[in-house]
């Protein structure tokens, strides 16, 4: 018998692909949800051939909140685990001057992900089980000059997940917050990043899979980030405001 399905929201990314393979290799059917989802047909075939599970494709527009209930209704089955990777880094310089672009970053990192996970949380609660995973960012723990629009919206998402977890803690539904640091993906291609701090998409998949097995609350993909962020968060504001991180 196959295990419960895993829904991956924002399935077009490198991290999403690694996650899909990870869960499929453990025997879970996979539901891939993304914009223009037909571009993932090759991934669908690949995952099915490698792991012998059923993979379905679902058109999903995170920013079209009105479409969310219909999207959930349209899934072949309510998944056992839902992982949200929807997000947008944007360019900080643009986000400072172009409010439309800033709003797009805010909505992509906070509004869309929070709404769909909130909806799924209610469905999971009604059914009596399920795990929700939000891929946030260490940038959401303390926003800094170089990407505070992105950081602030991720902070909103972190806070939302925390509250949702608190609300559901006495019941069977669990919420995991994942805080990756730098990950080697299309988003970070070409950036000069310190190698010791850089995780691979497969590392994220491994960390998420372990977190859902052990029902962890908040996980950092590379443990060193816990230390780094503890230090950064402990800096008094009058010191922090003068740093350039």
């Amino acid at each position: 018998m196959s295990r419960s399905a895993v829904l991956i929201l924002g399935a077009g990314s490198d991290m999403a692909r690694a996650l899909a393979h990870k869960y499929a290799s453990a025997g879970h059917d996979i539901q891939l949800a993304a914009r223009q989802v037909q571009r993932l047909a090759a991934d669908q075939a690949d995952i099915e051939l490698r792991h012998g599970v059923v993979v379905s494709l679902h058109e999903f527009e995170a920013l079209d909140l009105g479409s969310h209930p219909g999207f959930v209704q349209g899934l072949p089955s309510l998944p056992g685990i839902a992982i949200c990777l929807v997000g947008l880094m944007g360019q900080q310089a643009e986000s400072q001057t172009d409010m439309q672009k800033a709003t797009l970053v805010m909505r992509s990192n906070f509004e869309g992900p929070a709404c769909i996970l909130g909806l799924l949380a209610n469905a999971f609660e009604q059914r009596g089980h399920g795990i929700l995973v939000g891929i946030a960012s260490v940038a959401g723990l303390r926003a800094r000059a170089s990407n505070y629009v992105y950081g602030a919206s991720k902070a909103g998402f972190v806070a939302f997940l925390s509250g949702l977890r608190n609300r559901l803690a006495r019941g069977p539904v669990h919420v995991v917050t994942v805080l990756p640091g730098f990950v080697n993906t299309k988003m970070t291609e070409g950036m000069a990043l310190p190698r010791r701090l850089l995780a691979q998409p497969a590392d994220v998949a491994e960390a998420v899979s372990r977190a859902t097995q052990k029902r962890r609350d908040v996980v950092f993909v590379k443990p060193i980030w816990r230390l780094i962020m503890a230090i950064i968060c402990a800096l008094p504001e009058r010191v922090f405001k003068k740093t350039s991180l």
Partner: protein
Amino acid sequence: MSILSGWGQYPRLQAHLRKPQSSEALCALAQNSGPAIARGNGRAYGDSAINSRCTIDMRALNRFLQFCPDSGQLVAEAGVLLGDIIATFLPRGWFLHVTPGTKFVTLGGAVAADVHGKNHHKEGGFGAYVDWLDLLNHSGQILRCSRSENPQLFQHTLGGMGLTGVICRVALRLRPVSSGWIVQKRQVARDIGQAIALFEQAQDATYSVAWIDCLQRGAAMGRSLLMLGEHATPADLPPKARATPFAPPKRWHLHMPITPPSWVLNRATVRAFNALYYWQGARGPGHSLVDWDSYFYPLDAILGWNKIYGRRGFAQFQCVIPLAQAEAGLRSLLAAISAAGAGSFLAVLKRLGAQESPLSFPMAGYTLALDFPVTAKTLALMQQLDTITCHYGGRIYLAKDSRISREMFHQTEPRAALFTRYRQASGAAGAWTSAQSERLGL
């Protein structure tokens, strides 16, 4: 810019490396890059998959697209590793028809080099099992190529070293097998003449290969251990293993943790290793059951073994001598190698079958492959080996080459001029070049 090299870590060249994540990104890249070359997992030994202006890393395009369990035809993107194919399809009873000595090569790389395996004498090269391929050409189109559709382009792409375009997708026929095991029969040859005689007697064996001690001189010159193999049926397996004939072999993987100084490998250590290996092989049991991983990929167990030759890297010399001249040619090669005292652990002798193709390496005859740490002395020796190869009408293997001269290459390869003419006429010449093709004028 990054520093790229092949598996031999020689030469090391500066290059712009791009890694497209989708077919669309690949097409866009190829159209805007100027001359470029595709690169798989970097297992060609020399400079075949390096272009300083634009090297296209194909490893993100590694999806399986389709598999037909009736015909055994697999359609996959070119960046898939052969090891991935085995891991996925061996448990369902399918193996590769042809495999080189490492499973860490990509499908596209295997097609571009038209690699051969231990069964070439009987079953031909990798390209023989390619039903069709999709090739990105110089004008940004993806063309389906097969024996009936664009047949010229298809034939020039098998063994064409990526110089006709970028191989994007391949339809490969797999081989049905009933276990993951090989029944191996070992034979001892006291010298090169006996080794050839044993190979000729073993024409019906599916797999045959010999390890050859290239430091021996005189009467024992070319003493070898010949290994013949057949796919095992469940009846060949011990009773306990019959229920799970495809169970993955238990194998340790070692990492080469450091790069040892290059003096570690010298005449004395190699001679001692060879003697030990020969006597252990000559005394051991003649028949054995070997798992697929140890049989086909013994060196894959030592990840990063290419570091053993030290920082300066190494070069592999691999030539083939046509059948009629094989014994004389091999004797001449072995005499030069043992006189120089520059033998290697990994000298391999193999019978190849006949093959007609525009640039693929194999021809009916014997192929000899050995590694040398790169020094002025070994480079000079390899030039001498080139001359001997040329004298006996042989040729060298481009997937292993990092150093042959342009003049010598063209003397050994009368096909090169035709291949170049085809490239110029089809427009590929301006779009696809590698450091190797520029070095060789190909």
